[in-house]
């Protein structure tokens, strides 16, 4: 089986279980506030790491290339509260444009 299919199956099964933890596994419980608080920081930590690697990583090197234009344009779009699809489109256009002219 290819690496892609193994990833698809394991991520699919794991995510299905995570989504079902509440509706299937929990009747009338709540997580301790401390645990909820720590879990709420996992998202920001990972998303910030993904911004860094998606924007600057090229293999094992950190580089500044056309992607920075996409990030900057997307940041502006996000700050003016543009919808998510607009962030994607603006980010792609800015990256492609800078790549084209550089």
């Amino acid at each position, binding site marked *: 089986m290819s690496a892609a299919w193994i990833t698809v199956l394991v991520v699919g099964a794991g*995510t299905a279980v995570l989504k079902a933890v509440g509706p299937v596994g929990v009747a009338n419980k709540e997580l301790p506030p401390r645990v909820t*608080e720590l*879990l709420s920081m996992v998202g920001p930590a990972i998303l910030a790491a993904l*911004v*860094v*690697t998606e924007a600057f990583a090229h293999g094992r090197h950190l580089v500044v290339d056309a992607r920075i234009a*996409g990030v900057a344009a997307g*940041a502006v779009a996000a700050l003016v509260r543009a919808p998510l699809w607009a962030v994607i489109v603006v*980010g792609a256009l800015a990256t492609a444009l800078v790549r084209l002219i550089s």
Partner: protein
Amino acid sequence: MAPLVPAVLALGASLGVLARASHFSSAAVIVMSATTFAGSSQVAAVSVLGAGGGIVAAVVAALLLNVRYAPIGITVAQSFRGSIGRRFAEAQLVVDESWALSGGGTPRFDRRVMLGIGGGLWIAWVGGTAIGALLGGVVSDPSAFGLDGAFAALFLALLVSQLTNRRAIAAAALGAAIAAALTPLTPPGVPIIAATVAVLVGWRRT
């Protein structure tokens, strides 16, 4: 839900193109969207695998992004009825958007509204992925369209929406620093996983 459909279609199509460039078959990425149905984690898994990060790093990075669904599911658990199979199936339609728009986390949560929105978004997500997978078979180099920069922008937009308090900002800053420091030292994917250490800033009692 209507304003979300173009976003979900566009992101799904982008994922499809990216996946084809990362040696996923069309079937594999479409099955992934139908079963995982959690966008940012799928982009993360495909990116890590495409960058040569290996299966373990791809799976761990994706699942860490979905850990939030455990507490999210717990906030709405009381509204689900019926057999285990039915609750399991309905739980799959709980995604960030369907949860938020149906009053998740508040006493007004409406399971039927959540199912309607989640079902609609699922169709758009799987359909968008299929469109992208077909386009990706034709497009040889998605970076010419700036897709790599677009995903970085997308993650940034998602990050900004989660920076709701000082601890989240501290975790994000530390996570970014860890990822930058480890990128030259470890295989792709590892810096993202290691960044979760940043949640330890929350251990400090204030």
